[in-house]
């Protein structure tokens, strides 16, 4: 039997059983579309995180006080109270070749007040470098100057949300605000910008690092951000950072250095695994479609006993009967897959329009994987009905009798 003839034969069959055909097509296309859509969701999340990280700065090393690794044996009876990271440490790190900028950060919560309004706000004490490293731009006024590295200036830069809540639509620049027990002048407001790695820069107050040191009465830094030259070797600078700290902390290596690359790699790993898991879960819908195909094929075999008997009587071999039934399933799956792929990409396109900041990206393997699973289950689940059809006794089948 020629392929074309089989296609014609199956087409006539599909036209005859329209409802059945449409339902099966629907089952297969939903399965294929869900594999593609869900994996693009996972891949989209990965892309989103990648972009967030690059928004953080090109290449960043984060130095945290305290060691995160387990050391030695036995319980730390004397305690391993970590030495504070200090501004002097930060300055020393700035002298490492390849480090473009150092942003020491002191973090705390203070009350900020203007006239009769006040609110709690996360306050970061830092320098002008902070804005470069975090790629923050000024919306109004100006940012901290280089003097903020060394002098406890009574100035501050507000996030847009803080500005809005304290001043409303009134002018904030040049106004005095009360931060803790100090008076500071507002010199700038940050540009409106989304959340970045859980830090909502709209709801922040940035003051000079020396001012923060006095305000919080603590020389300990929350962390130090290092901006690395694109040409520099991140691993090497990481090593040098540890060496500098060790020298300054009497041989103790009591800091943790996290590179942006390693964080990104960790996220990448997690999200890639997640995407695979999602793919596996959505494949279940294809499995269900496969079982549906098997059931309906089995019903079709018993409904078409006479036809099968007849086909055998007029010269169809068992192999041809098998071929007809498997071909029928494969054809359904091809059409269902085509439908599912088109629907999936149409939806991805629509989502891209509705939600441009989080575009769904189908991973390159999504379509082949969906097709593989669809055809695999289709084939596996149509073999049984096809075998049953081929094994029919033509004589009994023609009479419409069971074995």
């Amino acid at each position, binding site marked *: 039997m020629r392929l074309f003839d089989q296609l014609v034969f199956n087409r*006539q069959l599909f036209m005859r059983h329209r409802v059945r055909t449409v339902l099966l097509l629907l089952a297969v296309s939903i399965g294929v579309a869900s594999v593609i859509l869900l994996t693009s969701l996972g891949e989209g999340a990965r892309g989103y995180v990648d972009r967030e990280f690059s928004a953080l700065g090109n290449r960043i090393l984060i130095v945290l006080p305290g060691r995160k690794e387990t050391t030695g044996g036995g319980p730390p009876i004397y305690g391993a109270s970590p030495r504070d990271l200090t501004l002097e440490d930060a300055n020393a790190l700035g002298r490492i070749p390849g480090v473009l900028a150092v942003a020491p950060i002191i973090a705390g919560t203070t009350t900020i007040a203007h006239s009769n309004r006040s609110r709690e706000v996360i306050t970061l004490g830092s320098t002008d470098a902070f804005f470069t490293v975090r790629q923050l731009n000024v919306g109004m006024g100006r940012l901290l100057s280089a003097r903020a590295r060394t002098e406890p200036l009574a100035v501050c830069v507000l996030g847009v949300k803080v500005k809005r809540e304290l001043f409303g639509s009134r002018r904030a620049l040049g106004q005095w605000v009360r931060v803790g027990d100090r008076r500071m002048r507002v010199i700038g407001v940050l540009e409106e910008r989304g959340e970045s790695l859980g830090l909502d820069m709209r709801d922040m107050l940035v003051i000079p690092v020396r001012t923060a040191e006095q305000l919080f009465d603590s020389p300990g830094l929350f962390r130090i951000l290092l901006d690395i030259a694109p040409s520099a070797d991140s691993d090497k600078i990481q090593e040098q950072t540890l060496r500098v700290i060790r020298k300054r902390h009497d041989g103790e290596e009591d800091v943790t250095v996290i590179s942006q690359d390693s964080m990104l790699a960790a996220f990448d790993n997690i999200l890639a695994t997640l995407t695979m898991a999602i793919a596996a879960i959505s494949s279940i819908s294809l499995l269900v479609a496969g079982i549906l195909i098997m059931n309906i094929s089995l019903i079709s075999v018993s409904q078409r006993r006479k036809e099968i008997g007849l086909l055998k009587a007029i010269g169809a071999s068992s192999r041809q009967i098998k071929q007809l039934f498997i071909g029928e399933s494969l054809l359904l799956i091809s059409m269902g897959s085509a439908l599912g792929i088109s629907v999936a990409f149409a939806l991805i396109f629509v989502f891209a329009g509705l939600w441009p900041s989080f575009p769904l990206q189908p991973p390159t393997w999504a379509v082949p994987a969906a097709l593989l699973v669809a055809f695999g289950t289709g084939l596996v689940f149509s073999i049984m009905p096809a075998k049953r059809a081929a094994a029919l006794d033509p*004589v009994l089948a023609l009479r419409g009798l069971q074995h």
Partner: protein
Amino acid sequence: MIKLEAINKTYQVGGSPLRALCDVSLQIEPGEYLSVMGPSGSGKSTLLNMIGLLDRPDSGRYWFDQVATEELNEERRAHLRGENIGFIFQSFHLINRLTAFENVELPMMLAGQPVKQRRSAVTDVMAMVGLSDRASHKPNQLSGGQLQRVAIARAIVMRPRLLLADEPTGNLDSHSGGEVIDVIEKLNQDGITLITVTHDQQLGDRARRHIRMVDGMIDSDHNAHIKGSNIKSSQTKISDIKSVDIDSADTEDKKSDDATI
């Protein structure tokens, strides 16, 4: 052309064995016109299915054109059946979703023949059974006699040398039954070997050779009117057969429920 030797076939019916065929031996020459008669359960249909290669004997040998068929695999048997044997059934067994033309085309399609060749062959046989104008009709638009003629067209479209008819007029009234008989006897006159299984004494008597079966055995086998002149060489091609002129009054409409698939 056909030689059966000590064919045995036993079916399990409700747990107890039923001997459908018991040491049946039979020889059939090309161009013969046989009728097989006998009471229900005498093994007539089993014999027909055996000859038609739809069934395999438990023991015994069957040569079709000197080919020992019991040695063939399913694939080869299907091929042999498709090429050489045409079936006509009591309940027609046409496929409902296909037009008359497509039903007739089916055997050629299964054999993988090219479309062009199929078209001309189908057109020829449709004319032969007098249904050229009904080619695009679906089975539910045709009368019983027309359905059986479509089935005959399908049986002969591959130009088989053997035509097996199982109660070909069983579901038809006498008028359309007569038309069907005319068509298949004309085919026999033009050289095709014809075997009819029937309960109908009148139809059975029309054959030249009468086989009577009882309890899975051939009870009697005799030639009715030994003219022999009609036994021609099996080389005669169906293409030589002229269109059978049939009064297309087609008043019959008796259709059994299982007339079509």
